[in-house]
């Protein structure tokens, strides 16, 4: 049976269309979820897309965290539902305490928009199991508040537990501590990534097809997961 992957639209989401398209290209059925509807409609996994939910008011992701759909997603994620937060989605996952740390203003204060090399460091997550350890991928980055920060103890714990999923290579675009571009929770089902894999799934529109691996990984994970 075709896996069903939900893509949430918040007021101010930008990349929900591209995320749904990436899900489809990877071979799954995208299911559009609405921020105000707590029902996940039986999806097997969820993508929180990039954008500026609630206008980035207060802090990026701070208000989205309280959307009705997020209350259900937080519970389901704690129960093992695969969740990928991209850019604003990563910020929302941190605000919802599904991932540690926070994303702050880029150190140089400039919005960064470029194709970025990443090194995949953890291939045991639900969203990266089709990559090779240490594989370098090319994926667009576009953010103004992508500087990952956490206290030293948290950073050391992430490193020790192999929960740094990807790091920036060839220049850190936002000042993120320890060049962190993506992290995961202890169980490996929740991943937050600042660059945009959904923009690298087709030759016509992306710099590579490397982003597709995140979406095919979750399909592989779902096939292997107990029902």
């Amino acid at each position: 049976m075709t896996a069903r992957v939900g893509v949430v639209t918040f007021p101010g989401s930008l990349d929900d269309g591209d995320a749904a398209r990436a899900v489809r290209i990877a071979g799954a059925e995208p299911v559009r979820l609405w921020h105000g509807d707590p029902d996940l409609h039986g999806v097997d996994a969820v993508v929180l897309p990039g954008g500026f939910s609630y206008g980035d008011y207060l802090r990026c992701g701070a208000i989205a965290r309280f959307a009705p759909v997020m209350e259900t997603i937080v519970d389901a994620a704690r129960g093992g539902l695969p969740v990928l937060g991209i850019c604003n989605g990563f910020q929302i996952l941190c605000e919802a305490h599904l991932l540690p740390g926070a994303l702050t203003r880029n150190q140089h204060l400039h919005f960064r928009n470029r194709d970025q090399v990443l090194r995949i460091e953890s291939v045991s997550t639900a969203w990266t199991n089709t990559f090779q350890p240490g594989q370098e991928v090319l994926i667009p980055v576009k953010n103004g508040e992508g500087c990952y920060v956490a206290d030293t103890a948290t950073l050391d714990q992430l490193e020790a537990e192999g929960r740094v999923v990807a790091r920036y290579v060839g220049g850190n675009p936002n000042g993120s501590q320890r060049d962190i571009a993506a992290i995961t929770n202890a169980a490996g089902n929740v991943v937050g990534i600042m660059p945009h894999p959904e923009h690298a799934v087709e030759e016509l529109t992306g710099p590579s097809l490397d982003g597709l691996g995140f979406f095919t990984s979750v399909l592989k994970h779902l096939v292997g997961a107990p029902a």
Partner: protein
Amino acid sequence: MPRVVVDVMLKPEILDPQGQAVANALPRLGVGDVASVRIGRRIEIEFTGEPDLDRAREIADKLLANPVIEDFTVRLVEADETADARS
């Protein structure tokens, strides 16, 4: 009616690039004796009834501040000290 004022500041160990940008602009005003600038946020809360500091603290902890990167303080002020009164 008194209001509750919540001041939210980045923790001292968190880099404040906005504050740095402002500090770097000050020499252009001819100001040379400022060592550093930190930028925060002030939120004024008006309750429908009596101001509730404990409730304000809860609001600040859950929504207004992100305790991972920010500290906050909560205090009561009289209405004539608030932004409305000054405008």
